[in-house]
């Protein structure tokens, strides 16, 4: 019974090998560092088995992941959720591969606090790393236990047994289903650190593009989202929010609401208001009436948007040293200096947040498109005063969220209203303007960089300082749920704590991967702001990579070295070099398009310096007089370790390219003292079809047998930086204030 085993501690290995360097910087003597929970940590859970791979560390029992019985067959559980990236299908592929059954034989359940493991948040490109790794190992170990069971019963050696479609065969033609074999096997046991080895070359599912399970229903009107849920006697609710943060309800004309046709109920608790009706349209009309008839106090003032970055440097902040090494002369000789800014952005889900809640027989059940059912459950339980055991949060898909949007708050709304109207399922749907006005934004940020070369044209000195408000106001207490602020007995948000390196918060990817002998990176974590900010795809990496890669281009120009070569001169990681070289070759860098206003730009980053690698080259042209930026061609190369679903990965990278282009060229939240003007798509325009890149090519470098590294967010920073560098090439103008193609930007180009 010799089974070849390998250490398939995928995520952990990645962390140890690559994280050690970065952690090393952070732990240099004399640099105190407050370590916080990571964004994706299993909040509220304990690490029970630190030597196990992926999410098995927090949920080590095999039967938490896989159960097999005669009635339901094989059921696989994940604590992660489908956010629209296709991970549900990819996770199923991994489980099916390692159980060696066809995916169709698996009943696959995603996050539900009553059923599935607690895997914290589905965020940070961690799903395949955490849950995929756990399933990769748990499924193989379960199959091994089933084989051992059959071998015992048949008195055969395991090596002589084969499996096909959940049936075990021996060489004499005997067979036994997994459900038969599981009898007498105790799956309620800790996973072991080592799993049976299966070479990547023999994979039949991992590495194949299994069509996504959810798409057929989504293209034909099947019920696919929490928005589509219809429970018996369900009531429809709409919330009525204050005009701005800090406003208190003075009065509301309840009589006016009673005059509406049909039955309308007003839920009121302090400054918290909602209307509930039997019909959704009636609820909308009651909400409109409520907005017209409610009077509020003025609320908190909004800052002057034109000086927001100056304000960031003046507000109370905690200073976090991020990385330091070598010796930086002061001042830096012949340094290139830049001041880079980013505006507030919004997630901008196409479907505003929605939730259904039902308080029945003492238990509150909430169907929600949250990214983390367990943390949400704890927050809601605290808010409504129920024991955690009497609150169940079940994930149901929503519109793509791209981070911490209104999902949790809408679930809290549904919970509050359901508690006020026991026995009836309550569906709450936010309006577009409510999503835009009340979702947590991605922080406005400021980065200052100073960098210099040595005489041979190599990077020698790097000083980087950034200012940001929090990127991780996830639900760690009831006070992190917006509706809880409005109650007669309001809750206060837990203090803000940044996500520690190497994941990083505002400082994600603030440390260049390039070899630089003398370096200092600091973050000013701004604690008070008029806008609630939280996680949005890539957190600070968007501006940090933009700032680093703009600076690298400028220094390459000073050194009169081609920017791609300059990057290669400072990269030793062969996988980093491979994506850079692949893009350069496919793009035919520095081949430049002819035609007026055209330019090319290059950028590279490894996400969080420990996850996926991404290089991008962009060719665009700028209409100097109108400022229109037309993206002609995008060539990207990515390395995310072992690829689970090539088409799923491709879809993510293509999407990230378009989304990042929209953020980088157009997006900013508009506000002034009179209010927040980006309450709809007119005031917050995003990319539409006519501005779509003409051509997008993605090259995927597979790494069989290597750890999963995650994919969804790796492209946001590099795409932004490649656009900035290409515009610089096209116009001779180095743009450092995001968004780049804001109204009137072309005035800076001259006529």
């Amino acid at each position, binding site marked *: 019974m010799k089974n070849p085993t390998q250490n398939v501690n995928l995520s952990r290995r990645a962390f140890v090998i690559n994280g050690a360097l970065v952690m090393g910087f952070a732990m240099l003597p004399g640099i105190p560092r407050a370590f916080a929970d990571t964004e994706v940590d299993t909040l509220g859970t304990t690490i029970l088995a630190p030597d196990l791979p992926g999410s098995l560390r927090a949920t080590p029992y095999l039967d938490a992941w896989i159960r097999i019985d005669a009635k339901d067959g094989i059921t696989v559980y994940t604590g992660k959720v489908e956010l629209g990236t296709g991970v549900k299908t990819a996770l199923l592929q991994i489980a099916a591969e390692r159980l060696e059954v066809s995916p169709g034989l698996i009943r696959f359940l995603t996050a539900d606090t009553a059923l599935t493991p607690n895997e914290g948040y589905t965020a940070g490109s961690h799903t395949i790393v955490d849950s995929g790794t756990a399933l990769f190992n748990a499924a193989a170990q379960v199959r091994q236990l089933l084989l051992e069971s059959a071998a015992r019963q048949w008195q055969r050696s395991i090596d002589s047994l084969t499996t096909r479609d959940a049936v075990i065969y021996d060489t004499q033609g005997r067979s036994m289903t997994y459900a038969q074999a599981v009898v007498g096997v105790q799956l309620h046991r800790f996973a072991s650190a080592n799993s049976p080895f299966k070479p990547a070359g023999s994979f039949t599912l991992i590495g194949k593009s299994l069509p996504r399970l959810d798409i057929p229903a989504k293209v034909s009107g099947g019920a696919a989202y929490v928005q589509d849920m219809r429970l018996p006697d369900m009531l429809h609710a709409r919330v009525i929010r204050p005009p701005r943060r800090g406003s208190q309800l003075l009065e509301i004309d309840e009589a006016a609401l009673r005059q509406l046709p049909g039955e309308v109920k007003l839920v009121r608790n302090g400054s918290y208001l909602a209307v509930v009706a039997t019909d959704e*349209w009636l609820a909308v009309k009651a909400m409109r009436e409520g907005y017209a008839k409610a009077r509020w106090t003025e609320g908190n003032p909004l800052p002057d948007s034109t000086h927001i970055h100056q304000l960031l440097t003046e507000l109370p902040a905690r200073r976090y040293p991020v990385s330091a090494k070598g010796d930086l002369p002061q001042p830096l000789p012949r340094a290139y200096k830049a001041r880079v800014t980013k505006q507030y952005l919004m997630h901008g889900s196409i*479907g505003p947040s929605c939730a259904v809640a039902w308080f029945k027989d003492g238990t509150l059940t909430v169907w929600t498109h949250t990214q983390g059912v367990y943390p949400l459950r704890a927050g809601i339980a605290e808010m409504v005063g129920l024991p955690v055991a009497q609150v169940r949060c079940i994930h149901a898909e929503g519109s793509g969220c791209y981070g911490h949007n209104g999902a949790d708050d809408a679930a809290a709304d549904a919970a509050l209203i359901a508690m006020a109207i026991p026995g009836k399922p309550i569906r709450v749907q936010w309006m577009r303007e409510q999503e835009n006005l009340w979702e947590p934004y991605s922080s406005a940020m400021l980065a200052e960089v100073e960098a210099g070369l040595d005489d041979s044209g190599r990077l020698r000195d790097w000083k980087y300082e950034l200012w940001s408000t929090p990127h991780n106001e996830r639900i760690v207490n009831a006070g992190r749920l917006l509706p809880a602020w409005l109650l007669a007995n309001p809750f206060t948000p837990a203090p803000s704590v940044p996500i520690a390196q190497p994941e990083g918060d505002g400082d994600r990817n603030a440390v260049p991967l390039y070899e630089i002998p003398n370096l200092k990176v600091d973050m000013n974590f701004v604690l008070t702001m008029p806008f609630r900010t939280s996680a949005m795809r890539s957190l600070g990496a968007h501006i940090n990579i933009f700032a680093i890669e703009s600076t690298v281009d400028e220094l390459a120009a000073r050194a009169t070295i081609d920017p791609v070569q300059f990057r290669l001169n400072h990269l030793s990681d062969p996988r980093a070099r491979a994506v850079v070289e692949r893009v350069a070759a496919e793009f035919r860098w520095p081949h430049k398009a002819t035609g007026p206003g055209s330019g090319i730009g290059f950028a590279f980053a490894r996400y969080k310096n420990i996850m996926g690698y991404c290089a991008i080259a962009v060719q665009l042209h700028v209409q100097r007089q109108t400022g229109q930026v037309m993206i002609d061609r995008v060539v990207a190369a990515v390395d995310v370790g072992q690829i689970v679903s090539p088409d799923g990965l491709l879809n993510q990278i293509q999407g990230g390219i378009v989304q990042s282009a929209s953020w980088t060229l157009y997006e900013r939240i508009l506000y002034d003292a009179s209010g927040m003007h980006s309450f709809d798509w007119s005031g917050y325009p995003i990319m539409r079809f006519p501005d*779509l890149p003409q051509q997008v090519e993605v090259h995927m470098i597979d790494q069989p047998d290597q750890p999963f590294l995650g994919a969804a967010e790796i492209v946001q920073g590099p795409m932004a930086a490649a656009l900035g560098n290409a515009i610089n090439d096209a116009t001779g103008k180095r743009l450092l204030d995001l968004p780049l193609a804001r109204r009137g930007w072309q005035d800076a180009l001259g006529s």
Partner: protein
Amino acid sequence: MITLDINGKTHELDIADDMPLLYALRNQVGLNGAKYGCGLGQCGACTVLVNDKPVFSCLTPCGALAGKSVRTVESLGSVDQPGPLQKAFIDEQAAQCGYCIAGMIVRAQALLEANPHPDDETIRRHMAPNLCRCGTHVRIFAAIKSVVAQGGKV
């Protein structure tokens, strides 16, 4: 009582004139395809065909639909028998979260019914009213193009 002709079937609904078609489709008729996205005619998630033209159902009062035919994405095919555009979207895996997709398909349907051979520029301009936040545009465009390449028959 309002009479609506939806996907070839007549529905007698006890609703007010002012109810936008979107709410009637979702709540009274029980269809999921048309989605609430903005209620402002800015994103296209709710797009349906009224007399073969793409409209925002969130801004179309039911009282304005007497004698008109309404078609939703459900009329174009099913999971088992997808219509040409639906099939193309599945083949291209042209969805991420998919919330915008039904509206995208309906708007593309309107284009191809009127013009089976649109050029790239026409497709881009025609699809401009519909937003996608996941950035799936590249695939949506490819799916529409693949139907055009097969003769544009929808």
